[in-house]
Structures are given as C-alpha cells and as structure tokens.
C-alpha cells in the first residue's frame, strides 16, 4: 500500500506537464477555438505520436503502452490544467468502448489507428438501430466535428459509425475547447459491437475518471492563477491577497482541490486494481471534481474582478470547461444519486 506516485508516474507527470505548458498555450487554444472544431491538430499529432499519450492505456497488442488509469489521469490532469483543445476525452471513450466490447476484428482494425492519433474517436448516446442501420439524431457528441469514428449507444445496440456515413453538424458550444456536434443518421450502415453493455459501462467509467482528472487540473490552474493575481494586485495600498476575505476563499479552493486530488487518484487506482469500490470511487470522483472545478472557476472570476469577466482573460475558458465537465456523462447530482443507491439507501431498514 502506497498512495503516492511511483518514480515512473512522477516522471510521466513532469513530462506531460511541461509538454502541455509549452504547447497548449492560451494563443494556441484560442486559435483552435476560432475554428469551431476546437481542435489543435498540430498539438494532437505531437501528443499522439511523439509522446504516445492517446494510446497510453491501450494494450500493447493494439499499439498502446499498456499503462493504466492512473497514467491516463495524469495526462488528463495536465491537459486540463491548460484547458487544452484536444479530442482526448472523446477518443478515450471510443477506444475504451472498442477494447471492452468490440469484436477481435473491430479492435484490430480500429485501435492502432486511434492509438496513433491518425483517427479521432468520439461517443454519443441516441438514435435507434434497425436492421444494421442507424436512424435518428444523436446530440451532444464531444469533438464530433473532427471525429472520424463514432461509438453510438443507440436503442437496439451499440454501433460503430464512420464519419462519412452520416451528417455531422458542429454546434455553437459554450465550451469552445471541447465543442459538441450533432449527428443525423438517416439509415446509415453501421457495425454493431459484440458486447454493447460492457462497452458502454467501460467507456463511461473511463470517461468519468477522465473528466474528473480534467476538472482537477483545471481547478488547480484556477487556484494557481488567482493566487498569483492576488499577490500582485494592489488595492487600498496592499496586495489583495493580504485580506482574509480573499485568503480564506483561496484556502477553501485548495481544500476542495486536495480532496478532489485524492478522489481522482483513488478512482484511477481502484479501477486499475479492480477494487470492489471502483464504481463508487468513479462516481465520487466525477461528482466532486465537477463541483470543485465550478467552485474554483467561479471564484477565479470573482477574485479577478472586472478583468476576469473579459473575453481576453482566460478565466472564461476554465469557467466554461468546468460547466461542461459537470454536465457531460452525468451531473454531480446524478452521480451522487447513484452513490445513494450503492450505499444501500433503497434496501430494507
């Protein structure tokens, strides 16, 4: 039992932190936001090919590094710290669904290309499958406008859908760093995954932890940037960070963040070890991290005053990503309700 990073994990953390700090700059992210695709293609190539970040948790037989959720969380946390505009989450969802529920042929055909970043994946819920064809509209598909391959959890099965088989329309999305798209599938030919239920369970669990780790990184960035500002901004002849009203809010942010850090790495570790409380841990991490991120991003705006409300300042990137992290794949309230059931509130007294 040792609940701290191994030397290798600490090294990965250092590498990805400096990678995202150097590459996923505010300028690059804002350029990606302007495209409506919310995708920094050059950054994606280096992340996938130079660092192998996309295939990190994939088995080696499929072109991955065979690492686990802890390492994936380290990457998501570092990317979240910079609000990087990358389809990391959407691709992870598709990859995990394929690994858990795809046929051998599907895995062999798609996973190496997803791992290398050559293809971008995404995941959506909606539509219905009828005779090997997908019908209907699938909303809220993250990074859908740049994805090549979709896993769609539809009525009647879980389908693999190629981009060219349906109409994909980008949505004007509040969070431009992970924008949504809509898919209209008018009888598109699809393949079914072998085990749809398992695929969805595995994908969503990985998604919850990835979103929680993204939120952890983002919340930490909100705190760090606001602390820096509070030390330099002078009013009433003193740094505003010397006022208890400000200090205590920042301290409260740190208290929430540290609990969130425990939650994210507990959930990742429990998933890797197949612990009996892994499901509860994933719900806990997603619920808490989303609340923490919104709390911290809201405080970031408040403590920056007027400048924090401008488009020019990065505060809104965090604030919007925080909101998106909270609603995608289940709200905090939904996850807590799952926990309420897991602790036995519905069993007989």
């Amino acid at each position, binding site marked *: 039992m040792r*609940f701290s990073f191994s030397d290798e994990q600490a090294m990965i953390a250092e590498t990805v932190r400096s990678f995202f700090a150097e590459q996923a700059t505010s300028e690059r992210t804002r350029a990606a936001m302007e495209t409506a695709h919310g995708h920094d293609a050059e950054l994606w190539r280096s992340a996938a090919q130079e660092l192998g970040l996309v295939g990190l948790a994939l088995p080696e037989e499929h072109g991955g590094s065979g690492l686990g959720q802890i390492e994936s969380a380290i990457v998501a946390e570092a990317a979240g710290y910079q609000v990087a505009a990358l389809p990391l989450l959407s691709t992870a969802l598709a990859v995990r669904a394929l690994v858990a529920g795809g046929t051998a042929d599907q895995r062999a055909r798609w996973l190496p290309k997803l791992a290398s970043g050559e293809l971008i994946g995404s995941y959506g819920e909606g539509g219905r499958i009828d005779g090997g064809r997908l019908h209907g509209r699938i909303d809220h598909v993250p990074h859908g406008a740049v994805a090549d391959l979709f896993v769609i959890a539809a009525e009647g099965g879980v389908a693999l859908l190629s981009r060219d088989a349906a109409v994909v329309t980008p949505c004007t999305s509040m969070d431009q760093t992970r924008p949504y798209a809509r898919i209209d599938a008018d009888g598109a030919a699809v393949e079914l995954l072998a085990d749809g239920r398992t695929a969805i369970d595995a994908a969503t669990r990985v998604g919850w932890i990835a979103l929680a780790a993204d939120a952890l990184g983002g919340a930490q960035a909100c705190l760090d940037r606001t602390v820096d500002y509070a*030390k330099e901004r002078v009013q009433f002849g003193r740094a505003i960070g010397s006022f*208890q009203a400000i200090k*205590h809010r*920042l*301290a409260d942010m740190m208290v929430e963040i*540290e609990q969130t*850090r425990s939650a994210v790495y507990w959930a990742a*570790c429990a998933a890797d070890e197949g612990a009996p409380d892994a499901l509860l841990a994933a719900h806990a991490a997603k619920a808490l991290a989303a609340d923490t991120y919104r709390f911290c991003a809201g405080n970031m705006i408040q403590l920056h005053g007027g400048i924090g409300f401008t488009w020019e300042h990065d505060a809104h990137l965090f604030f919007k990503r925080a909101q998106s992290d909270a609603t995608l794949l289940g709200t905090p309230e939904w996850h807590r309700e799952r926990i*309420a059931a897991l602790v036995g509130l519905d069993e007989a007294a």
Partner: protein
Amino acid sequence: MKLGFSPEEEAFRAEAAAWLQAELSGPFADLRGITSLTAAPDRRRAWERRLGEARWGCIGWPEAYGGRDATLAEQVIFAEEYARAGAPPRLNHIGVELAGPTILAFGSDEQKARLLPPIARGEQLWCQGYSEPNAGSDLANVRTRAWRDGGDWVIEGQKVWTSLAQFSDWIFVVARTEPGSKGPKGLSFLLVPIDQPGVTVRPIRQITGDAEFNETFFDGARTAAANILGEPGQGWQVAMALLGFERGVSTLAQQMGFRNELDAVIRAAKANGAARDPLIRQRIAKAEIGLRLMRYGALRMLSGGTGGAEGNGAAALTYKIQWASWRRSLGELAIDVLGIAGEIGDGAEYGFGELSTLFLYSRADTIYGGTNQIQRNIIAERALGLPREPRGDIG
C-alpha cells in the same frame, strides 16, 4: 501508486482482528460499541492496560519502548480493525498519539526510557495543557509561568479546555519560562504530574450537558527539572511539532469512528423514511464521498512523496478543516434525518441519543485544534504563500 495490501499484511490484519474479537466478545464485551469519550473510564483504563500487555497499544513505536516497529501499512490496518471491532475510544489517545511521538522526537534517551514504556503499557494517561483564557487561537500568548527552584520547575497559571484531564496522570504544559518574553519566544514544554496539591482540575460542563473538558489550575505545582522536553525557551517548536503528530495514523482510527456514525445516520434514515427524500439522499452521498476521501487524504499524507502538482504536504495542511467541516455537516445531517424526534431526550437527565449528541458535539470540531478560520490562514500563508496576518501588538 497502489492501494491493495500484500498477503503478509492481510495475515497481520487477520491476527489483529482475531485478537480484538476475542477480547471484545470476552473480558471487554461491555466496552464494545462505546463511542462516548467519557463513558466507563475505569473499564477503559483497564482496556488500555490490556492493549499494553498484548503490545497492541502503540504498535508503531520501537520495540524497545513497548511497540512493535509496525510498518505504515500495519498501522493503517490495525486502526481499521480496531474501529471495525467496535473497540472504545482510546482513553489515552493524547498519550499514545501526541505525547509519545513528541517524546520520541525530542526526548533524551533517559526521558524516552522513563516515559514511553508506561504509556505503551497503558499505565500512564496524558492530557494537553495548551489553551488558556487569553491564549486560544493566539496560542503564543501563553501566560502560565514556570521557574526553576532547586531541582524542580514551579508552575503558576491556568489552562483551559484540557480534555480528559480528570482521568489523566500527566499533563504537558506550555509555560513561559523567560520573564518578560512575548509571543512564541521564551516558552518551555514541561511534563507535569497531575496528582499533586498544586494542580486542580475542574470540569467544564459543555453544550452536550457532559463534561469532557476541564479548567486546570497550577498553583505552585512542581515537576522535576528533568521533565522538560527540548531546551528551555524551545517550547514553541516542540508544541508545534506535536500538532503535526495529530495528523498521523490516529486519523484513520478516528475515521473509522466517523464510519460508524455515518452508518448510524444511514440506518436512522432508512428506519424513518428520510432515505426516500432526494435532498437527504444527496447529503448522505456527499457525506459518503467526504468520508472515503478522508481515508485517501490520510493515506496520501502517510505515504509521503507526491500525489500531484502540489505534493502530499498539501493533503496534510488541509486535513484538519476537511474532517472538521465534514463532521459538523454530518451532525447537521443527523439531526435533519431525525427531525423533531431528535430533540427529545431518553430520560430525566439532560442528554440525548448518539445522533443528537453528534449534532451538538460536532460544533467543537471546527474550533479545537485550530479553528477553521485559523486553518484557512495557515493554508493561505504556508501553502499558497499569501501575506501573513499582522499582529496588533508585537508586530
């Protein structure tokens, strides 16, 4: 990063669980399930001795002083099994968790050999003499004085909120030994026997109706010159180091007590139908999350190293406010689950059931050991590097 335990550690768990089970269903069955800090003091004193005899009292200490040189994982396991077995709160937790580790860190070989084994054997119980009427959050404003007289220290002054002093044999006292000194300078850390004419312990009745803490008066009290920990004038450093030990393995045992409390809240909610209320369900889920995370926060602190950008020192600095706020919220949840029935006592004496008492008692959690407000100052100044609060007097 690894959360599971090895087969050897699981074997240790089985051994500890079997011993606790045998004792608590045999000779100490009457203590099983007790949660009150003041209940059955004579029997719990006997329990301390029994733990000591079997060398389960202070397992993390060196064998030479009555411990087992237990690893961190073993200490974690024992703390979990102790609470799982329904064993009572440690009457000597201040000796075992605070005085002992501080003596280990600052004591001379003579002091360690003399003072530690009686704690490990459960024979000498300790309490803490820090706060005074004018030294609460501003702990450095201590006025209790001490001076050398022949082979003794003589102590004059008053301490307050001294928990469990009525059951204790020794008290450690932060006293001003340099006349005219102010703030953290000129203090010393003295170890004082309680059973002497110069020491008077007067219980203070608290919000629960119970009297767990006391006022302790020193009126020409004496202790041998050898009973100083660290050098004269070094008392503040020793006193602060002791507070660091409060975040040790003992927190895991404390958490298992919290587990029992939350389980009682869940049982009550299921019994009276509150468990069907969506808002209560959300609060129970929040409490469950917070409790689980206390464990992982503690494991991060105890594992050292880094768990992220800020390292695990961050987990240590935020731990007090985290558990204190959690427990106060649990108290509020408990009384809300009970509803008006929670405001009615069981008998003629002023006193209530476990959950109503929790509601009242947990108000202390965000005050003692550093209030939430002081904790926020500490976090802001030490972890975030924000400007320090100015003093109004000595700058």
